[in-house]
């Protein structure tokens, strides 16, 4: 290299972009010495407002009362919540300002071990040990980076992914400092939009220069979503063989093995991931689910027990973990303990109808297994009345379970009625249908399951096709009528909702804005988002919707 630029005097204090005297800090660490050390460090930059918390619970309390500009959180917080859980809960409860910079402090090179889900990632990591100069340098960089990404992040926050991609691509052309981060983000956004081929193109571009794990993982995911499971498997396996602690690769390999129908291998993969990183609740739940399917009850029991404990302080706290643990216990011959777990569920979710229904359904199963028919009968009655109270609002997994309970208690018709409704509402969701078929198979009713699924599906498909056809012929009013009528029965059907939105938008694009049509389209999109928050079609439809809104005004 001949063009060597000398950067001199860099170890003198750099020009600062942050006015520290105005910034409010939150420092979270379980060691008092660490807390006071970090507090001291930031005070030496001129910060005057520093709150500290010794554990996740008190951090959440502070976050609820105050708003902070910068949060420094140690990943390892001892027995309670870990740093990732604090971040997840804070984001989940909307306790962080959009501009709040979050830095996760981790032990040496364990970054991939602690990585959480994409939407719950901190703005940066800082590895221990660090001194005040390093911390300050990192703070400056994070604040600069946050402002660099601000417009894009705001678009993402409003779920305007297509817009965010355009912004990313503009920046990429300018060859900015964080070029590779913009590239990575644009690929992730394409994934969110379901444009897997675009994402794959970007990942391949990165991999052409260099084997980089995140790009390999991304490429593997695009294969997974394109149903190329063999290829996906090969990629995930090669990532793991290169780096045994890349935990996300295990999760995806596990999912892939399930798709390939090899539950044994899926269980092995997730098991070894859980051993390496036992505090990840979603991974424990995934292991429990596989083990339950395999009737490997002692593994399932352990996994769900762990999920219950980990869930205590987590946004992922979930009644199903308790009932799954209870069922695993009951089938593994300890009905008594199972009953205790369900009692704990009732106590920890007071006045929660969903949780009570979960509890009642599980009690029915457990008492039956124990041979206590009276108690089982009582639980069945409770479950029935709760289910009818909740009615159409019941989530589909609850409904499937309820149907199972009906079948198990000899009320076949009621069970079938529920299944029919679920199938009609998600007739295009192959995964969900497969799960339902699995339920029938596990009850020894394979053929009946096939029959009920096929017939329920057919009606909806026919109706939907008719509507689509009308739309294509330009008979928009007729199409709108048809889909609206269909929705009276099938309010939870994503495809019907989306198609109604499509024809409504087309009608307005042709005939101009119509408030009642706008309102209807909005209702449908909200409904779909509620069922499927990451639905691929919504962003595009939302763009069309926004354009119609703007044009009219």
């Amino acid at each position, binding site marked *: 290299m001949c063009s*060597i630029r000398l950067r001199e005097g860099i170890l003198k204090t750099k020009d600062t972009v942050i006015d520290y005297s105005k910034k409010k800090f939150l420092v979270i660490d379980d060691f008092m010495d660490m807390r006071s050390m970090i507090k001291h460090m930031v005070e030496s930059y001129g910060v005057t407002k520093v709150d500290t918390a010794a554990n996740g619970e008190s951090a959440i309390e502070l976050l609820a009362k105050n708003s902070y500009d910068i949060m420094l959180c140690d990943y390892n917080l001892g027995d309670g919540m870990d740093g990732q859980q604090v971040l997840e809960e804070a984001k989940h409860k909307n306790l962080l300002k959009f501009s709040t910079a979050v830095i996760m402090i981790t032990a040496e*090179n364990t970054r991939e071990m602690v990585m959480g889900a994409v939407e719950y990632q901190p703005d940066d990591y800082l590895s221990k040990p660090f001194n005040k100069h390093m911390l300050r340098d*990192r703070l400056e960089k994070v604040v600069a980076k946050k402002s660099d990404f601000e417009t894009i992040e705001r678009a993402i926050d409003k779920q305007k992914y297509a817009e965010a991609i355009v912004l990313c691509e503009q920046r990429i052309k300018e060859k900015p400092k964080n070029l*590779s981060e913009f590239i990575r983000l644009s690929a992730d956004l394409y994934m969110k939009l379901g444009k897997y081929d675009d994402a794959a193109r970007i990942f391949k571009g990165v991999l052409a220069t260099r084997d980089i794990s995140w790009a390999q993982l991304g490429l593997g995911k695009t294969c997974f979503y394109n149903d190329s499971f063999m290829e996906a498997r090969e990629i995930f396996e090669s990532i793991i063989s290169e780096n045994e*602690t890349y935990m996300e690769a295990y999760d995806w390999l596990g999912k892939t093995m399930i798709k390939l129908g090899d539950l044994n291998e899926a269980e092995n993969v997730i098991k070894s991931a859980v051993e390496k990183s036992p505090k990840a609740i979603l991974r424990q739940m995934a292991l429990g689910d596989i083990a339950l399917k395999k009737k490997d009850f002692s593994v399932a029991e352990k996994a769900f027990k762990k999920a219950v404990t980990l869930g205590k302080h987590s946004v992922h706290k979930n009644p199903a973990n308790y009932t799954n643990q209870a069922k695993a216990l009951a089938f593994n011959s300890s009905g008594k303990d199972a009953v205790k777990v369900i009692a704990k569920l009732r106590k920890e979710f007071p006045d929660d109808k969903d949780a009570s229904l979960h509890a009642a359904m599980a009690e029915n199963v457990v008492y039956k297994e124990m041979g206590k028919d009276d108690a089982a009968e009582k639980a069945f009655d409770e479950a029935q009345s709760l289910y009818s109270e909740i009615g159409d609002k019941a989530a589909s997994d609850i409904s499937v379970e309820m149907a199972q309970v009906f079948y198990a208690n000899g009320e076949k018709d009621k069970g079938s009625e529920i299944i029919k409704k679920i199938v009609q509402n998600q007739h295009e969701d192959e995964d969900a249908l497969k799960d339902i078929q699995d339920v029938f198979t596990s009850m020894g009713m394979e053929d009946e399951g096939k029959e009920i699924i096929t017939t329920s599906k057919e009606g909806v498909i026919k109706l939907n096709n008719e509507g689509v056809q009308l739309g294509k012929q330009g008979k928009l009013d007729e199409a709108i009528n048809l889909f609206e009528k269909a929705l009276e029965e099938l309010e939870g059907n994503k495809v019907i909702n989306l198609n109604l939105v499509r024809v409504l938008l087309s009608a307005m694009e042709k005939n101009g804005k119509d408030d009642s049509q706008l309102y209807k389209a909005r209702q449908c999109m909200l409904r779909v988002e509620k069922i499927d928050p990451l639905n691929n079609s919504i962003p595009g439809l939302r763009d069309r919707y926004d354009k119609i809104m703007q044009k009219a005004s």
Partner: protein
Amino acid sequence: MSAQSNDKEDLTADKSEDNADFVAILASAIHDMKNSLGFVLNSLDEFIDEADQSQPPERLVRVQYEAKRVNNNLVRLLALYKMQCLGVSANIDEHDVGEFLQECMLQDKPITDAKDIKVNVECSGELMGYFDSDLVMGVLGNAVTNAVRYTKNELIVSAEEVDGYLKISVHDDGEGFPESMLSSNENGAGDVGHGVSFSSGNTGLGLYFSSLVAALHKNKGRSGFIDFTNGCALSGGCFSIYLP
């Protein structure tokens, strides 16, 4: 290279429970020591800052330096434990080399400031590199702490691209590395141990760690390595790590 993979096999081959427990306890004890020492170090930095800036007390600076050395050793041991026993590997990503080097130098800023050593970074502003930033930062931290001991007035940290490798070097203006260390290069930089003195007295830990980290960086059939020379950019020693 071969020495490294043999070691790994030895460690994984021995799976007796007791041994595993012992290793885990050792690791957690090191972790604990490192945390305490981190606190000691930062307090020392503060004392020295608070003392008369133009003339920090020499004995305090010496204590600070030795504590930093111990801390480096503990960090290296932990990193090695994670690599050997937990299978943690290099997490390679693209980095702005100039920015990275500046960040690295901040690790030792308390010491270079206290000893009044001038530190310069020489690097093209456009240079990008592919490496595990945590691991390479550990290697450079060791090299700088080591260089600080032998240098007189000045240190240069430089980076450039050489034959498809990213070469990062730490230069000092001291007496240079002893002949014996330079000759060890003839056996390849992976030749570890045998009473070499590098930054950690004569334990060989620093050298072992650095060559291991270098070797973890692989690209298109090539592996990284380390190298010792004298009289490059400055009159003294020059430690280099080559990353493919």
